[in-house]
């Protein structure tokens, strides 16, 4: 395996892990809100979170590019602090997180919905406040689903292509991921390199989906 291939595989794995870490807290919070609370605009929040599942990834990438470019509403704010996201490894992580989030939210939400409210009520009768009920009863009982969702999100992040190439490009040694690498190598006729990346992609995704399904089944 060439140094370049190894670098792409390691970068993609760490970027996907970073994306999973980034989506975990907001993803679990949104999943809990959708499972447990009624609030105005709930269906709008739900739709926005699930949108990347059905939108063309390239369109999601374009939206991120617009939001985070130096003239975009978020990018211009960050630029004031000297932070530039577009076409950097951070853009890869961000694109992966946005694309993986819906899968985490869906699976974690199902986990929260499976936890009967009555366990939480019993915890309240024992004097537990809302945070203690959540952290010691709800969260542990939904943990397998959350983990399964995180693994699905991680798998999705690993294979992310459309959004990544628009918002982060395909800069060798900087933003090139497995999926983007396969495309770039194929386009430039480096079929052997592309094939090695393909095998690595399949192997990592296989293990992640297998683990995720096993966890979801046991939950």
């Amino acid at each position: 395996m060439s140094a370049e291939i190894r670098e792409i595989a390691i970068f993609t794995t760490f970027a996907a892990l970073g994306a999973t870490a980034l989506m975990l807290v907001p993803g679990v919070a949104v999943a809990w809100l959708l499972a447990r609370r009624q609030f105005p605009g709930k269906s709008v929040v739900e739709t926005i979170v699930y949108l990347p599942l059905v939108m063309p990834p390239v369109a999601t990438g374009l939206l991120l590019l617009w939001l985070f470019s130096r003239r975009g509403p978020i990018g211009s704010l960050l630029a004031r602090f000297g932070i530039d996201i577009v076409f950097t490894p951070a853009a890869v992580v961000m694109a992966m997180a946005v694309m993986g989030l819906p899968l985490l939210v869906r699976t974690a939400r199902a986990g929260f919905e499976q936890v009967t409210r009555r366990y939480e009520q019993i915890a309240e009768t024992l004097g537990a406040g809302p945070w203690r009920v959540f952290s010691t009863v709800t969260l542990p009982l939904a943990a397998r689903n959350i983990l399964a969702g995180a693994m699905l999100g991680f798998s999705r992040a690993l294979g992310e292509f459309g959004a990544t190439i628009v918002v982060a490009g395909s800069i060798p040694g900087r933003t090139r991921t497995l999926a983007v690498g396969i495309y770039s190598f194929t386009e430039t006729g480096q079929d052997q390199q592309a094939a090695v990346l393909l095998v690595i992609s399949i192997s990592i995704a296989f293990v992640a989906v297998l683990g995720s399904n096993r966890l979801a089944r046991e939950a």
Partner: protein
Amino acid sequence: MAAFDLDFTLRQGEFTLTFNVNVEARALALFGPSGSGKTSALEAVAGLRTPHHGRIGVNGHVLFDSERHVNTPVRWRRIGYVPQDILLFPHLNVRENVTYGRRAGSRPHLGVLIELLELSTLMDRRVASLSGGERQRVAMARALYSGPDVLLLDEPLAAVDLPRRRRIVDALIGIRDELSVPLVYVTHLPEEALTVADWAVLIDNGRIGASGRPREVMPSD
């Protein structure tokens, strides 16, 4: 002994429960057929259901009063509750279940509960491995360890085999007399109401049919 001031109306769809009991008792039995509203009455006292209107007070503490807009949150009520389906936390072992409640204030010593409810050999077990009677005893200990002013129990003998029921009845008497924690429990077995309770309330179809000393109001057959 606890002073119960329970006077409320609870609506659930078509069903209306009208509850009116004002009594001092060590153990109050709510007796009646299934669907009569016994569990709803317990859950209203615990704060898990909100009455349409009325008042719920225990020992002078007002837990709910629709006129004064009082509705004490469940966690501050100091009402222990053992539901019929028991609901031990499945991800915690027996010891972790029992010691879950960490409310400030007085509570029975853990050793006293272990002895009274015969839990010494169960403390490190997983809850999935417990029998019906064992689960019932662990749930009672869990509720008591949080230091409640009153313990509510929904059909405490329902999940227990006949030969083991005596142990649960003895435990209830121990909680009432040795720990001096007043009880309110739901039952459909007359003998259970007669053995433990010093006041019985007969409920039928959402209304109180009779209320008084168990021997005076319980069906004799």
